[in-house]
């Protein structure tokens, strides 16, 4: 059982949680993730770690409500519990002094990119952070992004905040302006990462992308998260989640991520119709579990 100490909304359908998880807090490094299960009949889903506090024994995660589990999770508040959290999983980001680094992050991907940006800046890189969002209410962590970077650009699809356009537009601008870029990290929706790769691969700029394939155990045991790199199969959970963008087959990633789309939509629809009851059930189950643990 993992206690939620803080919960706050940080954007449209995006919530930040501070959760007690001392083991994960001690070991977390930028770029790693957790797997979470809400209740006894819940699914296991991978989620981004935004930051951790080893002393306080807490991790901060950021969740966008997309499917049933994330929607249910985002109903939870401080004082609630999560049944299972395991991590930190995956390889940490490689932090080196590259020179000029561009980080492109789409909305909730900003949370994943932030700790890496901070570490890259600390390593002496000139960090350019381009955050993109559909519109103003999905722009998240602007202050933290500005702190983590030397140059910051906010982009929205509809122009309701910052500049109008995709993050790749800003990347194109920087390249067109002759800026020398030594390293790129892109974290966000697959089409965004694919677009970044298609720009940087021909230019030979080292580009890493953080892949969000479907996972079950997160320890390499199931192979469900396999991604195609060139003609080689890699497991995102133990070989990744960051991979060389020029090698990634994004079409296969998108196709595999759509594997359960129909079921996910049905589950979400069903959840929305029974939201109150589902939340009450969850709280009841977790409270019972917590009482049992206390008695032990």
């Amino acid at each position, binding site marked *: 059982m993992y206690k939620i100490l803080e919960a706050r909304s940080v954007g449209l359908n995006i919530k930040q949680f501070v959760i007690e998880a001392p083991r994960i807090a001690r070991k977390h490094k930028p770029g790693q993730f957790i797997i979470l299960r809400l209740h006894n*009949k819940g699914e*296991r889903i991978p989620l981004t770690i935004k930051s951790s506090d080893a002393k306080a024994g807490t991790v901060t995660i950021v969740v966008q409500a997309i499917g049933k589990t994330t929607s249910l999770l985002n109903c939870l508040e401080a004082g609630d519990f999560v049944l299972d959290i395991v*991590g930190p*999983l995956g390889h940490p980001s490689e932090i080196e002094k590259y020179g000029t680094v561009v980080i492109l992050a789409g909305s909730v991907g900003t949370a994943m990119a932030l700790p890496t940006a901070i570490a890259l800046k600390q390593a002496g890189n000139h960090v350019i952070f381009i955050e993109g969002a559909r519109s103003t209410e999905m722009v998240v962590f602007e202050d933290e992004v500005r702190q983590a970077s030397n140059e910051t650009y906010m982009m929205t699809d509809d122009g309701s905040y910052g500049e109008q356009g995709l993050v790749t537009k800003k990347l194109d601008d920087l390249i067109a302006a002759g800026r020398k870029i030594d390293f790129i990290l892109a974290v966000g929706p697959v089409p965004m990462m694919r677009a970044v790769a298609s720009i940087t691969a021909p230019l030979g700029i080292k580009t890493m992308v953080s892949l969000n394939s479907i996972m079950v155990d997160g320890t390499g*045991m199931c192979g469900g998260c396999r991604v195609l790199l060139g003609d080689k*199969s890699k497991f995102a959970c133990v070989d990744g989640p960051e991979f060389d963008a020029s090698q990634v087959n994004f079409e296969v990633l998108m196709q595999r991520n759509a594997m359960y789309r129909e*079921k996910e939509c049905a589950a979400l629809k069903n959840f929305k119709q029974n939201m109150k009851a589902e939340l009450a059930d969850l709280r009841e189950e977790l409270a019972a579990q917590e009482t049992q643990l206390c008695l032990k």
Partner: protein
Amino acid sequence: MSEINTLPRSAMNVLPLKERMKILRRHMPELDPKVRSRNFEEVNLGLQTDDALTESSRCIECAKPGCVIDCPVGVDIKQMVALIRAGDFLGAAAKLREDNSLPAITGRVCPQENQCEGGCIVGKKGSPVAIGNLERFVADYERLSGQLGLPPNAPSTGKSVAIVGSGPAGLSAAGDLIQKGHRVRVFEALHELGGVLIYGIPEFRLPKSIVKGEVNNLRRMGVEFETNVVVGKSVTIDELMHEEHYDAVFVATGAGLPVFLGVPGEHLNGVYSANEFLTRINLMRAYNTEEYDEPVYDCRDRNVIVVGGGNTAMDAVRTARRLGARTATLVYRRSDAEMPARAEEVKHAREEGVEFCMLTAPVAFLGDEKGWLTGARCVRMELSEPDESGRRRPVEIPGSGFNLPTDVAIIGVGTTANPLIQSTTPDLATNKRNYIVADNETMRTSKPGVFAGGDIVTGGATVILAMGAGRKAAKSIHEYLTSGEWETAVPIS
């Protein structure tokens, strides 16, 4: 005959050997194949008391019992069977527990035909004594009686042992070490305890309640458990030893990463590893999508193929059948004779309507424009001379290609070593396939205080072999903790 004399004289088997040999082997009652191929209930129902008594009287009490010699953990089977025949079922269970801390599990999943029953002299002329069924009978009898013969623990030694993995190797080591008076804590990466017994072996072969019962027995003996800890990630071996002050660590993390065929189309939607398919169904209960959230491909009225010939493949294909597959076909590149699966599983699978496509290998998976699997391109094989495994090597028959309509393909051809511990423990020697190197008898690794056993040392094997490794490790850990001596048997590579 000396140990048999510990039984009261009235309990001696008075039947002459010739008469005993005439008794037919009792059949294990089973659920009707038509019924069970549509549900996940346990197939074998267990022997009735009468049948267990009769079966036990078939034992001819050999002076050199082949059954004991061929048991990987050396259970005193001869004595156990004698106790059953004498009607002392709890005594038989206690005898069993002396060498096997998980009898209800091994009675269900051991490949007895290659072990105890393979060594049974009665079997040389007819059917061997049904030792596996008798083992299960006494373990179940003991559990249902509520009079569990849990052995007492020795006084506390003040030493502590961390066990990594709660599968068969970890659980059996935990049971032995707690009895020796050491503090024992088991770390499990998943959210549920039992390792492969939970995520791998299906409910119809090994009900989860049995595994939970064994875990709870260990808990009652004082073993501590912590789930959601991926050793190598959440904490390293060195941190366990130096920061959490464990005096010894036993690495029993199991086999690990699934092997794929490496043929085109393996990334199509609908192609699973057997590990993933079984984990979704067993650990995450995806067979009950009404209640549970984890999804799995809806196999109803679909054509499912499973590639492989071992127990994992057999579990997967029988699971697919139960999920309502129109056809559930096992595709294996060798022939029946070379299949490593237990004979009973093969028999059960056939009864349940699983089809066997032998001497066949997929060379590519075919899909539609959206990336969904539609078929498997297969070739026929023939067997040539034996390879290094001693089995005849399959060779492709030229021009034999054909398409097998397939909606779901499950690959169960084995696993490779999980790298998480090795990569974060630099002084732990590994072999060229990245399995941990440990001494065969002492289970000691290259790193003082660290022991390893089970599939992470041997590669994919059986539950009973992992349990045997767990027991050897427990013995060796106890020796180390009492003597403090460490002689490195394994060179650091």
